[in-house]
């Protein structure tokens, strides 16, 4: 085999190897996407679909547990109702609304965006935005001070002698 031909063969092998790796990575990515979105949005078994709906409901007699996580009698009853409604062809949103009618909006772990629910969602976001703004403003001040050199000593009221002191 001539050196030129040998070099071509090496290049071809490298290209095939790279192509195979790329195909494998693409296949893995596609499988991951299918598992993340395809399978969770359309769970196969009734048990998995019931669990998915129950995860969005707060157990009314528990402290901070979802119906899916709770082992209470009421949570098991609710599981049975969820399964029966799924078999009857109702959607997860319809089932959540059905429970909210009977146990109030607080039964929903993701409360609707109105009234107190909206406030509860808005306050953390507003706090983060305000906090970031404050940090940015402070950083800009420090930068300006750094360019101008040391800050002069401020003349403030406290430094003046108090009359009669």
């Amino acid at each position, binding site marked *: 085999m001539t050196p030129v031909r040998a070099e071509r063969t090496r290049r071809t092998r490298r290209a095939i190897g790279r192509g195979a790796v790329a195909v494998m990575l693409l296949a893995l990515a596609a499988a991951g996407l299918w598992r993340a979105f395809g399978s969770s949005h359309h769970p196969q078994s009734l048990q998995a679909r019931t669990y998915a709906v129950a995860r969005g409901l707060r157990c*009314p*007699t528990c402290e901070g547990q979802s119906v899916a996580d709770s082992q209470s*009698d*009421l949570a*098991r*009853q*609710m599981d*049975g*109702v969820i399964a*029966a409604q799924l078999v009857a062809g109702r959607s997860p949103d319809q089932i959540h609304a059905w429970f909210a009618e*009977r*146990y*109030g909006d*607080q039964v929903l772990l993701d*409360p609707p965006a109105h009234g*107190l*629910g909206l*406030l*509860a969602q808005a*306050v953390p976001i507003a*706090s983060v935005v305000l906090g970031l703004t404050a940090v940015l403003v402070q950083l800009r001040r420090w930068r300006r001070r750094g360019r101008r050199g040391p800050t002069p*000593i*401020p003349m*403030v*009221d*406290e*430094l003046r002698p108090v009359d009669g002191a």
Partner: protein
Amino acid sequence: VTQPAPVRRVAGVRMRPLAWSVVALALLAALTAGLAGALGGRNAADAAALMTGRTAPPLAGSSLTGGRLDLTDLRGHVVLVNVWASWCGPCRQELPLLAKFQQANRSTGVVVLGVVTRDSAGPARSLLASSGASQIRSIQDPTGALAVSWGATGVPESFLVDRAGRIRARCIGAVSPAWLDRNVAPVLAAS
């Protein structure tokens, strides 16, 4: 020589940056606590009022004696729907009171309708007999699905349904003679 921190004057009040931060944090904490209380603490206070004023959900099924019972067949009566079970201690104490209440108000069209939840017919019938409450008719709810469809959170729990089929009062836990007096009389008077 240490220099004093810069002081700001806002609305006549001198505030240092640190003080501003403390005030802001305190306000945020108060707001968060208020929200948590408003969203999480409503359960107990509002649960009793949640179903009140609404049309009673469907309630039908097999009775303990084998027949079929349906709340809609009792339209025109004032119905006290009572969710109970033979394994529930407070229910055992409540049943004799409910039996007496139904007996005393029979002439005014008041009916007690039981929902035996997550229980077997045998023990439920035995308890009714031993409590002198055999005249209380009950629908079997072995899975608890009927109780959930009424928004019940446990046993015993009672719902007072007026003659038009609307829920007028709800009692979480065992009813007392005072609760019955306070709630049944206005419903009877209104209908």
